[in-house]
């Protein structure tokens, strides 16, 4: 296929910016005419997928809309009704399908997500706090001037800084942000293990239509998309979830379980995720972290589970094995190629180093943003079948150790062998380590589509 038109695609879709601080603004549109004018004003601010070629910008701006937002912009009914059902319904109405119950139930979400008032997301990333502040001030000035939207809430997010340096750590202490999939035509530094597994054991990019609307997907079909084609093409869908982390619970649970586990605390922590806390895949280095592997792009995501069918190295239920099973289901991994998502996002809240007193009530967690062409086929399937259920992983009703909605009754099996340092072990009475605090489904349009909205040119005929 030909190269994608990077200037027509929002940059947020094509690449992780690697800009360490961010603020997400949630807007409510007051009326269609002024809101469309506002979008016209913002159009020149939106960061596209064009390559930076060395000159990294100080800050970036991207925009996405909820279905209610598009309704408020008075898009034609024939366009609005042609969106996939799950996007029209929104994440709150999909809670039963997603298993967002108990402590994750919508009634317990942050106030901004309990109503239907969020119409748009503005994502602003900065190279540092000053650049972020400056860009936010400029954007807020545009908002004020256009008077087309009110600011409902904003969310701060930031990489974890250790000794003044931005890291890819998250609050539980793991190094995060390894494998995102490669897609055909998307120009980036790719590494083995990030696309789809081929019969000869190499990795190839996934079909573009798994990420972007308007292109063939892994089944050779165009993803379900709104009409007209020009409006949908080069756009995608974004899932936004604010995931609160109960750090005190996590630390005390790990501490308590590791007194019983023969492999020691750090090994148990690695078994939970499938990576040692420095990011080394446990599949490649079962006995300890190895920074030479973790920092080598040719190796850090380049592994399969075929030789570990019993899970004695990486447990069957380890987080990364559940959500990206690679070849674990056989058939050279072909069963998972239509269930991949691209993750963006950053932690929020203050980082507490090991030993510092922490409370579950401390405001900290991760802003999880997933991009995919089909929310129901990709994100919702992963959440329902691989996070909240265990059958595909041959784990019966067990849920994902870290993200599962356990309510104190969960179980995580660590498979093992006969050696003293790798014994089989069962973690039971799992608490909820992560709680959902809200979120929504968004449509991230192309630059062309933003122009069509701004000028009132969306015509489904």
């Amino acid at each position: 296929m030909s190269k994608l038109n990077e200037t027509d695609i929002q940059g947020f879709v094509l690449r992780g910016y690697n800009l360490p601080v961010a603020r997400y603004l949630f807007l409510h549109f007051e009326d269609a005419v002024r809101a469309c004018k506002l979008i016209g004003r913002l159009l020149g601010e939106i960061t596209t997928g064009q390559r930076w070629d060395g000159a990294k910008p100080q800050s970036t701006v991207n925009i996405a809309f909820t279905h209610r937002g598009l309704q408020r912009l008075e898009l034609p009914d024939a366009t609005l009704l042609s969106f996939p059902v799950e996007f029209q319904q929104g994440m709150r109405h999909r809670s039963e399908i997603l298993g967002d119950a108990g402590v994750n139930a919508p009634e317990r979400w942050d106030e901004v997500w309990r109503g239907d008032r969020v119409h748009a997301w503005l994502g602003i990333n900065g190279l540092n706090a000053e650049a972020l502040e400056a860009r936010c001030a400029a954007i807020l000035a545009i908002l004020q001037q256009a008077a087309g939207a009110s600011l409902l809430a904003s969310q701060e997010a930031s990489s974890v800084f250790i000794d003044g340096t931005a890291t890819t750590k998250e609050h539980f202490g793991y190094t995060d942000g390894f494998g995102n999939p490669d897609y055909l035509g998307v120009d980036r530094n790719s590494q083995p293990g990030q696309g789809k597994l081929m019969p000869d054991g190499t990795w190839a990019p996934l079909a573009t239509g798994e990420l972007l609307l308007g292109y063939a997907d892994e089944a050779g079909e165009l993803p379900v998309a709104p009409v007209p084609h020009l409006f949908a093409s080069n756009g995608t869908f974004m899932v936004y979830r604010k995931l609160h982390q109960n750090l005190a619970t996590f630390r005390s649970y790990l501490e308590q379980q590791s007194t019983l586990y023969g492999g020691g605390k750090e090994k148990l922590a690695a078994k939970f995720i499938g990576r040692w806390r420095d990011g080394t895949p446990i599949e490649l280095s079962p006995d300890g972290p190895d920074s030479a592997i973790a920092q080598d792009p040719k190796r850090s995501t380049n592994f399969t589970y075929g030789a570990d069918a019993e899970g004695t190295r990486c447990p069957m239920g380890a987080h990364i094995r559940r959500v990206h099973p690679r070849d674990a289901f056989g058939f050279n991994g072909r069963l998972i190629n239509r269930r991949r998502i691209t993750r963006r996002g950053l932690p929020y809240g203050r980082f507490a180093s090991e030993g510092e007193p922490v409370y579950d009530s401390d405001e900290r967690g991760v802003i999880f943003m997933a991009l995919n062409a089909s929310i129901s086929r990709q994100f919702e399937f992963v959440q329902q079948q691989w996070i909240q259920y265990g059958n595909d992983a041959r784990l019966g009703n067990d849920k994902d150790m870290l993200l599962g909605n356990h309510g104190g009754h969960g179980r995580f099996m660590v498979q093992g062998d006969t050696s003293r340092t790798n014994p089989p072990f069962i973690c039971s009475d799992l608490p909820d380590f992560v709680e959902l605090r809200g979120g929504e489904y968004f449509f991230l349009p192309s630059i062309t589509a933003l122009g069509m909205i701004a000028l009132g040119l969306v015509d489904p005929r």
Partner: protein
Amino acid sequence: MPNKNGSVYGLTILSPIIDDEKATPSHDLQIRNYLAHLSTREQSPFAVAPGTHLARLVVMDDVIYVGMPACEEHLKSKYLVFESNLDGDLDDYLNGLAESMPELLDAIWQHCVGYPGAANRRAFVEYMKACQLDTTFFFAAVNDKSVPQTLRALQTQAAVADFIASHQGADPDSLQQEFIQFAAYLRAQPLPRPGSMGPPRDIKTGGRNE
């Protein structure tokens, strides 16, 4: 034996549904309505009747023409499809169904052409076998174990996992003692009821939800 895979029998029955334009609602809709309200899990009729691993009842209206380049074809009738993975001999199984759920069979199959009723046992078995298709290749979602063996295995697995989880790190002497007690307790447990071994899931899946 084309319908068998190890000890498991793969049964497929296609019964033509009565086509009567005067019937309102039509017979196929009446079957659909009845099936939509059937109980599942422990209350499923197939949990009550002996020997069923899993069963499926579905109304097949027609083959759907999807446009060129497919050629347009149609079935001669609407069919009730009954599929089951079962233990043992087919005659015994059909007799077991007729004995344990005759009202249910009649309520469903009364809408099918030539159905004699479950009360006439011989005619019932002959009718079902006349509607049978040789499967030759079927999806056996079970290993080569009977229903009671499978239920016992699930019970043992769950109990042993619980035992391990609650005894990790115990000293060897008390572990051995408690394991002996546990094994005796487990042996004395009655067989779980069919359909009872999966805890209810608090999540909506499948069909109309997705």
